[in-house]
């Protein structure tokens, strides 16, 4: 960066634009985290079962989501569906593709956690008259989340970073907004440095708030 002059004031002027983008990023991150979690819980159970159509479905999902680029997954939801005359807004396409990716990774994280739980916990719960789903919700999953929590939060942050692909389908999330602002001003370094800082701050906020939730739930 020999001789490059930084003009930070222009970033300052565009801050409302960047923050509006950051808000979209946060929305999609949180929603995709929740959607991914809700899909991954039954899929992890199905994966652990090791047979049946649900197992094959979950395995297919895990294989696709973890072994293809996230950008390819986004293109399938945006351009692929578009080619089938199913046109969805770029916001929905990013949300769906990040949720899809999250669910795949989280399934495997959860499955690892499930194997760490003593086999006898399930019959112990069922013997009290709890149904299978009740046993998972009250006995198995709380223990599982405790084991996998760090990896789970890391995936949530990874999902947030994946939302930056939104700029490729014209979504004004944080990266999209940055792309727009820098192309209008040609202050590339200023904008991308500022944006990196905002991503970092969001990631840290997610990490700290999740640790807080963890302590509240598990009293540790």
């Amino acid at each position, binding site marked *: 960066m020999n001789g490059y002059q930084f003009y930070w004031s222009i970033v300052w002027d565009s801050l409302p634009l960047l923050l509006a983008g950051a808000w979209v990023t946060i929305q999609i991150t949180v929603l995709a985290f929740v959607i991914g979690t809700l899909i991954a819980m039954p899929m992890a159970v199905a994966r652990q079962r090791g047979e049946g159509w649900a197992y094959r479905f979950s395995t297919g999902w895990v294989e696709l989501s973890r072994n293809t680029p996230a950008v390819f997954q986004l293109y399938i939801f945006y351009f692929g569906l578009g080619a089938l005359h199913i046109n969805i807004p770029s916001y929905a396409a990013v949300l769906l593709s990040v949720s899809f990716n999250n669910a795949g990774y989280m399934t495997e994280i959860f499955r690892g956690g499930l194997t760490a739980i*003593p086999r*006898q*916990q399930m*019959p*112990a*719960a*069922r*013997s*009290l*008259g*709890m*149904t299978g789903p*009740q046993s998972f919700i*009250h*006995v198995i999953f*709380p*223990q599982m989340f*405790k084991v996998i929590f760090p990896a789970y939060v890391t995936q949530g942050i990874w999902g947030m970073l994946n939302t930056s692909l939104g700029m490729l389908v014209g979504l004004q999330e944080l990266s999209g907004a940055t792309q727009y602002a820098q192309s209008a001003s040609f202050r590339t370094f200023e904008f991308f440095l500022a944006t990196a800082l905002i991503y970092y701050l969001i990631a840290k906020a997610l990490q700290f708030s999740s640790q807080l939730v963890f302590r509240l739930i*598990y009293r540790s």
Partner: protein
Amino acid sequence: MIEIRNVRKTFGALTVLKGINLDVNKGELLCLIGASGSGKSTLLQCINGLEPIQGGEIVVDGVSVHDPKTNINTLRQKLGIVFQQYNAFPHLTALENVALAPRVVAKRSRKEARALALKHLEHVGLGSKADSLPSQMSGGQQQRLAIARALAMEPSYMLFDEVTSALDPELVGEVLETMRLLKREGMTMVVVTHDISFARESADRVAFLHQGEVCEIGTAGEVIDNPHKEQTQKFLRREKRQPLEVA
């Protein structure tokens, strides 16, 4: 009453139960004894439907356990079971362990469930441990917690699956004492045990299982002190050579 009719149970090629016939009468304590692999624990797991059966029928108060039309979750509320490995829920306090099923299954209010849980914890002598996590409790305390947890569903029958086998010898006494307390209160109990002296002193009837069949059944005096079958005599001689610690 529990009626066990010609029950067959196989794991693949292995036949574990070869046509068991047994009745458990209201208010009695029936001990199941026998060598490892004789099928006594498996039989217990079949009674509350944790294990499917391949033949015969188990009927609890007129309801067939393995009938697909039976609501097994409702039926299980009648059948408390306590396992060898305690299986306390490690993420919950003692009180929450006991209150969970009354709240989730019996749909009691949070407050009611807590009061009920405290009552049952006090019953087994764990009133002061209500807010402890299982990891902060001894094996004997965890096993009594498991008993309280089963009792909180107010079952008609209690099934005990070698509940003292995993305990340090000095902790066995407190669990047996809790079981004697339940017997005095008239609970119907089926107890799988290796503890011959507990069976002799507490059981109304003793059934000796051998290779998946009821080999001999009768009062403790008949089966333990005066066994007629050769297999029973052999088994008891072996058990006496390696006496188990009993408090």
